[in-house]
């Protein structure tokens, strides 16, 4: 059946809530209002106020409460109305989501999912255009995935809920209305696996979330120009799927990373490091990385566009790499 991405997320939630009575949802306006991006629409009616919980605007403590509930065996899905607000909950996410399993010598697990929209788009301005994957990536014990299609949105949501590890699921403000036909049957996506988007021979382009679409736009142009790029959506932002990534590098010997993070401290920097550590000998050219500019996201539309990587830059980078 055909669904929009936000509906796919909702299906994932609903199926897991049906499957496992321990799954519950908390966040601001997730209940009666149905979620500001409609991801939880209708769920409060179906599951009641004890399983779909509207919270006050208190990110730090409702995230903490989710973690506490997870320590006791529930499987809470915590929504950051916008991912950026979870900066207020950073301590809980870092110290308790990420490290409690360790500091307790394995006694407790934290099977929580933290999810919500992030990324640059719609002129939402500086605070609402965060790419928290760069801030969160150093947290040990946390897994991070980014969805980019209705198919993988649903599959990753379901896998994240079933995981015993704390998982952050990144959604993107600009992708909620993507449409796709997805299977009617139950399926999940492996949390730790990258997704082959377009097989190719000449250069490996690694990307995720919204930048996947800028890359695919560039790929079209590149193909017209006679290039044959391989496009991989890395999906798992921590840990990286170095198996699939490695196979591609061994084939193409050239890598371009395209990310929406700012270049300092982004996912691209860590990914580049991992590739150099593991596949240096296979590289015929420096690993390139295109990132957003190191600036707060400006409001004005023209400036906002210049903040993130545009398809033309990707085309140019590939041409340079393949010289």
């Amino acid at each position, binding site marked *: 059946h055909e669904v929009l991405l936000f509906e796919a997320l909702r299906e994932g939630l609903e199926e897991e809530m049906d499957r496992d009575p321990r799954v519950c949802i908390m966040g601001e306006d997730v209940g009666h209002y149905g979620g500001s991006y409609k991801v939880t629409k209708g769920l409060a009616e179906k599951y009641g106020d004890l399983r779909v919980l509207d919270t*006050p*605007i*208190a990110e*730090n403590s409702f995230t903490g409460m989710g973690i506490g509930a997870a320590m006791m065996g529930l499987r809470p899905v915590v929504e950051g109305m916008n991912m950026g607000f979870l900066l207020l909950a950073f301590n809980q996410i870092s110290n308790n989501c990420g490290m409690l399993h360790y500091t307790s010598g394995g006694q407790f697990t934290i099977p929580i999912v933290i999810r919500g929209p992030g990324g640059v788009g719609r002129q939402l301005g500086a605070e609402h255009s965060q790419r928290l994957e760069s801030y969160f990536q150093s947290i040990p014990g946390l897994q991070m995935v980014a969805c980019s299609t209705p198919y993988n949105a649903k599959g990753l949501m379901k896998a994240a809920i079933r995981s015993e590890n704390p998982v952050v699921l990144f959604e993107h403000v600009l992708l909620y209305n993507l449409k796709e036909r997805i299977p009617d049957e139950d399926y999940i996506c492996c949390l730790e696996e990258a997704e082959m988007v377009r097989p190719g021979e000449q250069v490996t382009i690694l990307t995720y979330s919204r930048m996947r679409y800028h890359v695919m736009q560039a790929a079209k142009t590149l193909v017209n120009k006679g290039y044959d790029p391989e496009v991989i959506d890395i999906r798992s932002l921590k840990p990286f799927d170095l198996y699939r990534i490695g196979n591609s590098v061994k084939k193409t010997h050239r890598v371009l990373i395209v990310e929406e993070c700012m270049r300092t401290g982004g996912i691209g920097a860590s990914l580049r490091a991992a590739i150099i550590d593991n596949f240096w000998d296979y590289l015929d050219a420096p690993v390139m990385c295109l990132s957003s500019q190191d*600036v707060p996201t*400006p*409001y004005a*539309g023209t400036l906002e566009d*210049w903040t993130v990587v545009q398809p033309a*830059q990707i085309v140019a980078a590939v041409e340079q790499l393949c010289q």
Partner: protein
Amino acid sequence: WTVLTIETSIPFTGHRIDPPSRSVDTTRKELLSFFRDMARMRRMEISADSLYKAKLIRGFCHLYDGQEAVAIGMEAAITKRDSIITAYRDHCTFLGRGGTLVEVFSELMGRRSGCSKGKGGSMHFYKKEAGFYGGHGIVGAQVPLGCGLAFAQKYSKDETVTFALYGDGAANQGQLFEALNISALWDLPVILVCENNHYGMGTAEWRASKSPAYYKRGDYVPGLKVDGMDVLAVKQACKFAKEHVLKNGPIILEMDTYRYHGHSMSDPGSTYRTRDEISGVRQERDPIERVRKLILTYEMACASELKDIEKEIRKEVDEAIRQAKESPMPDPFELFTNVYVKGYGVEALGADRKEVKAFLP
């Protein structure tokens, strides 16, 4: 008729404090300026709505119509040496501090002549020289900043005060309680103003606050509940509060108010409240109509004079929009200015401190 004494709509309710009198002094001049200023705000917000629908404004846009009496009453009680800080619903506060309509519309449309050069947008208006410290997008996070402003005022022995505004939804953010405790310990001249418009996005106050009596939420800090739709009551309360905090440290003012629009432009504003509720407030408590009635009752002006003022305002607003539309989009290089303060010989520091390495498409 130089000074006129008018009763506030309802008495103030105090928490750990004796409330001020209901009798407020005012003048014809003041009431007419209240009328004009509030009507200008109203018109501005309604035009912003149209510009949004025309897609000239994008992103977030939180309108203040319904709440004008708070901004105007507050200004009437203080000077520009006092400070104000608020959240994202900031257009009218900016205007109240002396910002211009052109700056407002330019910023809303992301133009160069916007008050933040088009880089801030709707949620980021500021006016430093008039004591307006923004304009903040993260719910509640402006309140510690406001307490910090009050600290600086005390530090420099300025005898000025800070009004830190936040909503009923924000009232549940932990940082408010932290900052209030510190401000009370340090006796800071800060007034926490809770603009209770009864909803935080789609959530009614009682669904987000176990105790929605926000003027009491400071517990050991005194508070005052004010009819925030009555500009004279607001003025009286703010005057009272300013004197109080200079002597005794923080106070909380809860302004009972209402937003007519939805939360932001994507919210129709009618799924979590009834149309009757909205129209009831419009009919019975509208802050502009209240002042219009006062002016007419006391025969300070006639109905057609007020209509004329409104017509003038309409022109003024349209003219500002026209000017704002003429302002160009920001220069591309503005992407890199104001990241860091100049001083290294560079606009922005990239990986390389000597030079920005940014290529625009």
